[in-house]
């Protein structure tokens, strides 16, 4: 008889949550991905079928997966998603690292204000912020109107429904996810190490490259993964800002599921996406583990 302790009960609660809201749905999606499509509700054939009195047939249809590998559309969509996520992560790093560094080196009184400014956008809905970008970037939008009235341009720039707009949207939305873990890492740094490096002959930028950068590696990794992993599956921003050429796997999944009603194929896409992201999640986990182990 397993003794139910109070502690066991408390730990069981999150496990139960995970079971109910992650494991079970995952298993359902996995099951559908192995099914045949059917003109019925739900639009797929069951995995297990009774054949005769005492035999259960399990029909595992691997065609759905095979289909994804043969049709170039899907491979292209996966590749493009990875590319967009990668570039977005890079841009977030280039913009976000100086910001995180600046906040970490600011006076303590100023730091809280700066952090608040970074987090503030989260207090409004993501959708509203993306729509705000539409208002800024469209042909008749704020940016074009200001530039036209200043005489800098004479024809409105095409910014909306281009990859440019999509990148702007993704980088803007995910930037705080990079800044916060990176700031948490940089804030713990002993700045006297930079003085020691300078004392030993390093110029300031060399000290940054040889000391600060390697020591902030875990922060960079954690922040990058928090941007990259969700960005791969991003759907809303490419749909609203990216235009028809922004082919992302999230969009593909949506089309398969809602437009084609091909639940098995859509489920296969979802499972493949998950498998694709597993190594990156493991990378993130190892960075976190090293960060907490290194904290003395």
């Amino acid at each position, binding site marked *: 008889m397993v003794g139910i302790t109070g502690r066991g009960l408390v730990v069981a609660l999150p496990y139960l949550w995970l079971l109910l809201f992650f494991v079970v749905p995952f298993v359902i999606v996995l099951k559908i991905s192995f099914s045949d499509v059917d003109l019925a509700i739900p639009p797929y054939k069951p995995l297990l079928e009774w054949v005769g009195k005492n035999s259960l047939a399990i029909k595992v249809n691997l065609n759905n997966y095979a289909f994804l590998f043969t049709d170039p559309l899907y491979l292209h969509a996966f590749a493009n998603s990875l590319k967009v996520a990668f570039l977005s992560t890079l841009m977030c790093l280039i913009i976000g690292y100086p910001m995180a560094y600046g906040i970490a080196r600011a006076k303590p009184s100023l730091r809280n204000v700066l952090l608040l400014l970074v987090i503030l956008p989260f207090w409004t809905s993501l959708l509203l912020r993306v729509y705000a970008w539409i208002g800024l970037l469209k042909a008749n939008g704020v940016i074009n109107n200001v530039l036209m009235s200043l005489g800098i341009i004479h024809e409105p720039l095409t910014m909306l429904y281009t990859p440019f707009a999509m990148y702007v949207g993704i980088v803007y939305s995910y930037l705080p996810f990079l800044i916060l873990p990176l700031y948490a890492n940089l804030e713990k740094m002993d700045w006297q*190490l930079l003085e020691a490096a300078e004392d*030993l002959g390093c110029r300031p930028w060399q000290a940054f490259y040889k000391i600060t950068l390697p020591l902030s590696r875990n922060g960079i990794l954690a922040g990058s993964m928090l941007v990259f992993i969700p960005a791969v599956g991003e759907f809303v921003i490419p749909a609203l800002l990216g235009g028809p050429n922004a082919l992302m796997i999230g969009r593909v999944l949506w089309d398969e599921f809602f437009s084609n009603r091909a639940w098995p194929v859509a489920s296969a896409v979802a499972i493949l996406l998950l498998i694709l992201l597993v190594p990156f999640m493991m990378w993130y986990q190892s960075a976190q583990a090293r960060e907490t182990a290194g904290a003395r």
Partner: protein
Amino acid sequence: MTTSAAGVVKAQPWSDPSARPYVEVDRISKSFGDFKAVNDVSLKIYQREIFCLLGASGCGKTTLLRMLGGFETPTSGKIIIDGEDMTGIPPYERPVNMMFQSYALFPHMNVEQNVAFGLKQDRLPKHEIQERVATMLELVKMSEFAKRKPHQLSGGQRQRVALARSLVKRPKLLLLDEPLGALDKKLREHTQFELVSLQDKLGVTFIVVTHDQEEAMTLASRIGVMNHGEIVQAGTPSEIYEFPSSKFVADFVGSVNMFEGKLIEDEPNYVRIGSPELGCTIYVSHGISAPPEAVVWAAVRPEKIFMSTAAPQGSTDNLVRGTVQDIAYLGDLSIYLVKLPTGKVVRVTQPNTSRHAEAISWDQQVYLSWDATSPVVVTR
């Protein structure tokens, strides 16, 4: 210390007017807003010296050291190292290295890499770097820990790595910020002597910042006592101890009995001070410069006071009677707090020279006396 291992008394360059100082601090001041951390400090430090900046927290000694290292820019004044004006020069362009109080070892590098860091910056050939790192680790007895990372070392080991790292570039001047502060007492004593012998072997000039006067007395060839951003006195340890120039210095270094009084007789070769708080006159066998009837203080060190149960014969100067109020037995010596009829408590130390001596105990009546050469008269 002015005697090297060979027993030869070292020259005292600071008393030689023709000697050129290696480091010259010329009227340096540093203000942070309204607060004056360092106020018009001038110093001359000579080659191969161990010069200690001694003072309490907040006296400006670390700020002064940081200016010497190039980590702070002086508000006014000049710093001249080896004849060159280094006032505005950043740390990576100075022939100076610093050992930080927290050691500041790079956590993502092992001991070897930490020590080699400065040499790699200078772009020395690989084999030379390896050689010099190995020699230095040998010198500080850390060769077997070469591949360990800083978090795998004890405090004392980290201190030795920090020392090795700061000396491997063979700087002419090494700045040390409270080098022994984090070590326990026994290790500190041991390291003090090691530090001095290392400095002697390598011929580097040391400038050490410390608040521990025992450390300063052991390490230094000269001490600069600092208070509120100023150097109040600079001199050899014995000069500072036996000839303090002010009440502050007398009280800061070692313990001292301060007897306040007024000048009664002021002659070129002796003075007499009447001290009501002491209850006797103090006869000092050297002249002082002070205005007549001035309030002065006679400083007498505890070890210079004789304590006896029988009344000594001779003059009534420099003689008081009191009751033993407290005794602290420290093994090698004992500290006695003797209360005088005037209420003043005098501190006396006596070495326990004999194991079976007749011990003076509490509430005993004793006579305190001292030689005429013992008091130091300070006028401020």
